[in-house]
């Protein structure tokens, strides 16, 4: 075939790599267009900004508490009042947002890594690997996250790492279990066979074909997990095996106040409200990402402009 004779056609063809930035911008604009998008991006945006700001500045010091003013009502100096140790609620919630952000991000990264590794093994063409891993995942998934955390907390004590590892392992297993049927279907599809027939390696097929087509399922599952991590952090901290005492986190704020809910309800309402808002926003954000990813599959460049 004489390819050079097609040279003149080249000018008529649309450009290649320069559309990345405009596509990204369009995606963000599209996501902000609905009420759900505005809400979830606003909440998550505020969370990240507050978390970063809290590293440098909080309205009051975290540890210079004053026992004489424990449980004091909101005032111009202490917008949300003080907790049972006399510490400023707002400052602790701000500082806690950093801890929770770190926990959520690291847990999701760990869950994604474990999930992807397990999915890779499950769709592997090597004999026996897929069956063994599938059975192992089904067996391990029956162990509750709390139990993993309890076991880890025995040698390591209560720490942020315990929350991250327990949740990361639990959610990674969940991710693999939920994505498996779809991953297997994709791995057996004609387009994967077609790539295999070109001589593509298993790693190439996983990265270029299976994971991109699996992404909408994974995004939803991971965003659900992100919301659940915030709840799990609160739960594990309340049980005494999560964030250690003295380290600010939303779960810690809840744990210190929850026994006094009948007397000082607002000290529980504020951290509870923050947790609820963030969890709802994360779930909505996951749905938006999935919708965006799904439409991206069938839409052409000209449709998006």
């Amino acid at each position: 075939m004489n390819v050079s004779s097609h040279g003149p056609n080249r000018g008529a063809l649309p450009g290649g790599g320069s559309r990345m930035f405009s596509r990204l911008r369009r995606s963000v604009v599209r996501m902000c267009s609905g009420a759900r998008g505005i809400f979830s991006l606003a909440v998550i945006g505020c969370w990240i900004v507050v978390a970063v700001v809290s590293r440098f500045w909080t309205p009051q010091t975290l540890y210079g508490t004053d026992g004489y003013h424990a449980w004091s009502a909101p005032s111009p100096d202490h917008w949300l009042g003080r907790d049972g140790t006399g510490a400023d609620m707002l400052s602790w919630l701000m500082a806690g947002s950093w801890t929770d952000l770190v926990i959520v991000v690291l847990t999701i990264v760990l869950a994604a890594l474990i999930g992807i590794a397990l999915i890779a093994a499950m769709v592997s063409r090597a004999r026996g690997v897929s069956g063994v891993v599938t059975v192992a995942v089904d067996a391990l998934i029956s162990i509750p996250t709390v139990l993993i955390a309890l076991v880890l907390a025995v040698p390591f004590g209560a720490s942020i790492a315990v929350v991250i590892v327990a949740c990361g392992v639990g959610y990674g297993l969940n991710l693999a279990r939920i994505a498996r049927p779809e991953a297997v279907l994709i791995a057996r599809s004609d387009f994967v066979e077609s790539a295999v027939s070109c001589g593509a390696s298993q790693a190439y097929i996983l990265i270029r074909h299976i994971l991109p087509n699996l992404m909408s399922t994974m995004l939803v599952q991971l965003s659900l997990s992100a919301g659940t991590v915030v709840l799990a952090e609160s739960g594990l901290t309340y049980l005494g095996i999560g964030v250690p005492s003295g380290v600010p986190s939303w779960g810690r704020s809840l744990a210190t106040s929850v026994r006094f809910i009948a007397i000082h309800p607002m000290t529980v309402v504020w951290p509870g409200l923050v947790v609820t808002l963030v969890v709802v926003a994360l779930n909505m954000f996951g749905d938006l990402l999935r919708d965006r990813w799904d439409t991206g599959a069938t839409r052409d460049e000209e449709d998006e402009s």
Partner: protein
Amino acid sequence: MRGTEREARPDSVDESPLLEVSHVVRCFGRGEGSRAALRGVSMRVDKGRCLAVIGGSGSGKTTLAHLLLGLQRADAGAVRYRGALVQGRRSPGYRLLRGESSVVFQNPYASLDPRWDVERLVAEPLMVRLHGKRIDADDRRDMVVGALTQAGLDPASVWGRRPARLSGGQAQRVAIARAIVTQPKLIVADEPMSAIDVAARLQVVHTFAAIRDARPDAAIVIVSHDLGVVQHLADDVLVLHDGTVVEQGPTDRILQDPQHPYTRELVRAASW
């Protein structure tokens, strides 16, 4: 019709076959429920010839196509590509075959990744075969444009589109462009016309005829149950029935003077 179109094709074949299948058995399932899809199939694919594999549903056509491509392993018997044994991913024959063969599947929408655009879909075999060796973007683009043109598509009209935005005929021709972009020695098409509408089918037949004439060196294996297509495209015919080869030979002889009762039935059904 065939005689005039096929003047340029070699009548005599090279002595050594491009692909040779001997006494191949392939079973699915285990124990009591196991079923043999192929029961001792022997055949050869010669350089520069177009071979049609015909047979009814469940006759083992698709299994044979997968075996020819090394995508499935034979339970018994041997597949040899250019004399080298194709058996498992590490066999030398498998590697040769991967580098020099390509496939067109039945349903173009299933055989093209829904997330990829036409440019990337057609360029994929080039990128994979070169194993990371850099290929100039302009050269690659020219090769993709060349393959699309040869498959009967106007590159500018389909460029950048994803499979869902292509018609059945266009999508199947993109799949064909993908199959020919690396200039393979062997092209295996597994019922390439059966999942698309009648008008598109004609386009695809013409595309295959054009490729056959433009690439006299390449061997083409078309799995089909449409005898009209077979008559138009194939030099040789192999008839599969219930996992065995019941008849094989030049297209004219098989279609005009079928020997086996099953072939006679197929030909009679087609002439209805």
